[in-house]
Structures are given as structure tokens and as C-alpha cells.
């Protein structure tokens, strides 16, 4: 699977794409999430599109920004576009949310997105509350893969990495960061074939709890190690502080689900998301009964069957290439 749809809302605001349609009035700067899209712009470069944005929209009021395709004909690296945004950071004192790479599979394979070090975003925007990044290891296409250095950031509440192959380096940097306000952490780990080389050990600081005292919603998703992750989560101290847990989109099988059933109580969770799973009907029923009866909303949709090929069973995560 790849992404098919662009966002319609981000950070609770309707997304407004630039360049706008002819004769379309610009909305109030703080009323929408501004999305820049070089595919819509066609012959306009990201530099020009950015310049036109800051010239025409009162940047001091902009609250949310979504970066769509930053190239038109040939794929290019994100870094120059991001540098442009960061150089203008002082002009965006109200910016609270940034999405990097709202790009669909019709525009570029997620594994081909050429990302960069995103730490400077957190350094340049100390009041940022939401950061979401799509993409991961660029499979050697760019000069650099997606990366992150351990940071301390006082304001960040939501951090999401949507990836078919999230580099272990990023997972470790998240675990080593100090994010006292972080409420929502979502890591799509992906598969090793696309550079998702994190292990369960890399998740240890997150699972230990206390690292992010405000954390209430945790997603460790889209992994080919989903059973191992489930087993680790079953006894992880962090679970006690959560309201919502997602182990969805990966290759979760009966083994992982049984570890959850044997593990610590999950009855305090409002929501347990296991959609896109490989559970048998009987184990899915046990999960539904055990966790659902305590009032937890359990999502067991998108039950998948393994593919059989050359006498072996193959299970796929929801998002990889």
C-alpha cells in the first residue's frame, strides 16, 4: 500500500493548498493549514512558491504548514526546501504544526522521498506543538537519509513518523530526546528491506516509561517485528500512563496477541488499535473479549491472510515501499 489521499485537515485546521485556484480568495492566515504543492504549481519551483507564500500570506499569523511535493519533474532532496523554511522561521512566530512530505504514491514512492535531518525544525521552532514526517530511509537516492539528533523541546505535544522504513538512528534519537510535553508519539517502523532497521532494543527508552511523562497515546506500528514489539509492550512500564495504544499495520500474529493477553492489564486503555493484523478468528475473539469487555475500544479491522509462495508464508506490513 502507498498513500493515496492528501490531508484534508491538519492540526485541526482545514488544509488550503497553494497555489490556489484562479479567482480564489485567500483565507485568513490563521484559519487554515497552508499546504504548498509544486505539482499543482507545475512550472513553479519550490523557491518561487515559498516566496509567493510569504509575500502574500501574513506569515506572523500562520499556525500550520503542510509541505507537499517540493519538486515537479525530477525528484529532489528536501534539504534545500527545508533550509528555505528554516531561514524564514522568525517570520512565523505563531507556527505550531508542521507536516513534511504530504506526498502520495501517485507522486512518489514513500521509500524514494529524499529527506534530511529534521532536528533543525525543532531548534528553529521552539513553540512547535506538532511535527509529522512522512518518508524514511531514501534507499541511497539522496545524499542523506531521514535523521534526527536527540533534542530537548519544551512544547512538542505530537510527534509522528510515517515510514515504510524508519532508520534505527531516528528511533534511538527519539528515545534519547527530552520532550516533557509529548502526549502523542507515533512511529511507523517499516521493514528492513526499505531501511527500517530498528530493533525492539531501540524502543527500550520509550517502553520504559517516564522518558515522556506526558505521553498518553503511543503507536509502534507498521513493523515486521510486530509480535516482538507486542511481547515487549505486554510488560512495558510505559503502558500504565497510556490512554491509547496502537500496534496496528504490522505483521501481528497469534503469537504477539497471546503475549498481550498474558501480559499486564490493559483495561485502563480507552483504545487499542490492532487493525491490519494476521490473527486467527479464535485469537481475535479472545482479544475482543478480554480487552473489549473492560470498556476498551478494540480495532481489529483489516484482518489479513498470509500469502503463500514457494511453500512459505509471507506477511506484509501496511506501508513499505
Amino acid at each position: 500500500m502507498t498513500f493515496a489521499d492528501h490531508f484534508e485537515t491538519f492540526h485541526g485546521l482545514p488544509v488550503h493548498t497553494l497555489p490556489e485556484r484562479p479567482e480564489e480568495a485567500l483565507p485568513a492566515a490563521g484559519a487554515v493549514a497552508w499546504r504548498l504543492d509544486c505539482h499543482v504549481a507545475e512550472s513553479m519551483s519550490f523557491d518561487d512558491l515559498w516566496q509567493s507564500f510569504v509575500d502574500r500570506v501574513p506569515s506572523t499569523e500562520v499556525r500550520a504548514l503542510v509541505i507537499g511535493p517540493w519538486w515537479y519533474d525530477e525528484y529532489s532532496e528536501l534539504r534545500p526546501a527545508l533550509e528555505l523554511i528554516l531561514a524564514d522561521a522568525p517570520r512565523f512566530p505563531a507556527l505550531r504544526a508542521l507536516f513534511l512530505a504530504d506526498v502520495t504514491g501517485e507522486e512518489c514512492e514513500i521509500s524514494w522521498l529524499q529527506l534530511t535531518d529534521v532536528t533543525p525544525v525543532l531548534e528553529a521552532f521552539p513553540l512547535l506543538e506538532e511535527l509529522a514526517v512522512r518518508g524514511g530511509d531514501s534507499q541511497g537516492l539522496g545524499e542523506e537519509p531521514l535523521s534526527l539528533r536527540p533534542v530537548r523541546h519544551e512544547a512538542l505535544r505530537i510527534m509522528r513518523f510515517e515510514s515504510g522504513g524508519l532508520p534505527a538512528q531516528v528511533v534511538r534519537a527519539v528515545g534519547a530526546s527530552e520532550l516533557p510535553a509529548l502526549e502523542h508519539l507515533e512511529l511507523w517502523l517499516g521493514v528492513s528491506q526499505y531501511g527500517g532497521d530498528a530493533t525492539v532494543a531501540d524502543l527500550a527508552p520509550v517502553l520504559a516509561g517516564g522518558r515522556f511523562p506526558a505521553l498518553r497515546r503511543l503507536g509502534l506500528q507498521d513493523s515486521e517485528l510486530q509480535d516482538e514489539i507486542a511481547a515487549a509492550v505486554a510488560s512495558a512500564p510505559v503502558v500504565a500512563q497510556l490512554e491509547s495504544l496502537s500496534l496496528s499495520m504490522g505483521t501481528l500474529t497469534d503469537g504477539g496477541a497471546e503475549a498481550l493477553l498474558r501480559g499486564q492489564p490493559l483495561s485502563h486503555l480507552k483504545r487499542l488499535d490492532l487493525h491490519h493484523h494476521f490473527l486467527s478468528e479464535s485469537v481475535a475473539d479472545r482479544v475482543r473479549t478480554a480487552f473489549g469487555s473492560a470498556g476498551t475500544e478494540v480495532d481489529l479491522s483489516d484482518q489479513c491472510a498470509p500469502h503463500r509462495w514457494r511453500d512459505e508464508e509471507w506477511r506484509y506490513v501496511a506501508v513499505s515501499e
Partner: protein
Amino acid sequence: MSLSPSSPAPRTGLRFAVVGNPENRRTSMFADAVRAAGHGTPRVLPWRDVLRGRYAFTPGEWVRIDSPGENAEVDRLLRGTDDPARVEGTALWHRRFTAVLRDVARAAHRAGAVTSADPEDVAVMFDKRRCHARLSAAGVPVPPALTGAVGGWEELKDRLKQARLARVFVKPAHGSSASGIVALETAGPGRVKATTSVETAPDGRLYNSLRVRHYTSEPEVAALVDALVPDGIHVERWLPKASQGGRACDLRVVVVAGRATHAVVRTSRHPMTNLHLGGTRGDLDAARAAITAAGGRFADVLETAERAAACFPGTLCVGVDILPGAGWRRFTVGEVNAFGDLLPRLTGLPGSGAEGLDTYAAQVAAAQVAVRRTERKEHHHDTTA
């Protein structure tokens, strides 16, 4: 004109014939529409006989030219291959098919019969390079394409680089129904991905399958492209398509006698939206709403389809593939299909004049009008000569 089904059955004395494959549902559905309009059962001239020169027309007959597809014997006669799933042989198919069409049209004209399609129109529609050029010359929006012949993978790579095209569709010039189509992505040195329903056999032959697969090694992709090149390929930019319900989509608009009468949304998880490859019919109302929300007008989309159809004035009915760009703001024409009317049970668009009629009934109704016009014109010529 009103084509309302509640009108009394017209009895113009018009006699219909179909050149088609008798066992095919296209033929039976058209025959049903002819009978429903009160004209009696149309005469069926099987392609297998027509290709052997065994056919004749009668004065005043309306002759529908339908697809020769989905019949192994006919395919063998046209393409010289025993396996209908084979991708190769389309250039030969095109030469033979268009030659027969010209013969059929001449014979019909001599006999005083009228054909539903002009052979030169069909010849262009079945050559994606010429079709693209004709649309482009008429100002119909089309995706940018490479021009001139492409000699093979190495040349294609260079040409794509020069043209700064990272994502293209490589299409056999004479293919139909996604046969042989490759969605090709390139990036960086040697990075390539081809998405296609074509399967390469160990001996290098190409077969169409019902499964969409990916090729990611350059030697595989090179072999695929090199095997397609001898029949001619058309290469055009793969513009990101709009989506519906998490699936990329396009629109098939049927134009009958110049008017867009029927439209469906086709959605797919793959770059190709063809129904036999897992595509499904999408929600036309939702598409219309998305177009309106993006500041556009659905009527303009239909008009684009009508302008594309107007490039083929000698053909009563064509199916136009409209590609909505991501965000539903821009629309380009992907293909114009000579036999693009197989949309069972789909009734006409409101205000199209074909409300309540399927694509076949709409053509039967339009044929009567077309014949009357032709007769008037000929009468006029006779009296003024």
C-alpha cells in the same frame, strides 16, 4: 433530440447489422438495445467471416463496427499468435485490422450502407502516438509525451532524462485494455521501478496477466521495454491522479454523436485503473462534488471529453479516458477508445439526452438521427447537383 425510453418505439424501418464476435456480450447487448427500440434483431457479421472476406451489406443498413477482441480465432487471424495473452504482435494486428476496416467501409459505402465508425478514425485511436498528436494539435489537454520512435531501453533512459520525466507510462502504441502498459519510475543512477500486469516468461516472451507486479532491477525492466519496442511504444508523463476512498481514479466518459452521455469513475490501488486488474467503479457523485469543491465544473470535464471525441468526427461513439490531476483541478485526456462503450447497465447522465438509456440504447437512438441527417444531406446534394 429526446432519447427518453418512454417515447413510443420508433419504427423508422432502419435495419441494423453488427460486425462483431457473435459470442461476445458486446454483440448481444447491442442486439438487445436494437430490439428494445423496436427494430428487430440485427444481422451479425462475425469477425471470423469478415476477416476471410465473407460479408456483404444491404442498402440502407446501419453497420455497427464492434471490437474484434476476446476471440482466440479472430486474434490469431489478426495477430498471427496462438495465445491471446501474448503482448507482442500488436503492430501486425494494427496493420491487418485497419486494412480490413477500410475494406469493410468501402463495401458498405458501395452498398449504400452506413458504418458507425470511420476506418481512419479507428486507425488513429488504435495508435496512441497518433491519437496523442491529434488531440494535442486540436488543443485538447494531454499529458506531455515523447515524440518520435524510441529504439530501446538505453535510448528511453536517455530521452527521459533529457525530457526530465521521472514517471511515465510506457504503452504499446496499438494495445488496448492496459495490455502491455508499464508504469515506469526512474530516479538516480540505476534506480528503477516498473509496475505492470505484464509477465516476462523465461524465454523473454511477454504475457498479460491479471496480477499487477513490480520489477525493480534494471535488467528486468530493460528486457521488458526492449520486448515492447518492436511493436512501437508511446511514452507519456504519469501525472499524479486524484484519489477517491484511498484509490487513484480516472473517469471514462462515453461520447455519442458528439455529446457526453455516460460517465463512470474507475478507481484502483494500482496506477492502471482497468476493471480486470482489480479496478472498481467509483462514486461519480463524489467525483462531481470534489470537482466542484476544487472550484471546477463537471460540465467542463464533459466538454473536454466532447472535444476529444470531436477529433474523430466519423465515429458515432468513443470512450474518452479523463485523468483528473491530484486535487481535481486539472484534467487531461489519457486515451480515446474506439470500443470504449462496454459499461453494462450504466444509464445516461442527467441532461445528456440519454437518461435511462445504456450506452448501446443511446447509440441506437443516435443512429436513427444520424441516418435521417445523412439522408437529408444526400437528398439535398441530389436536388442541387
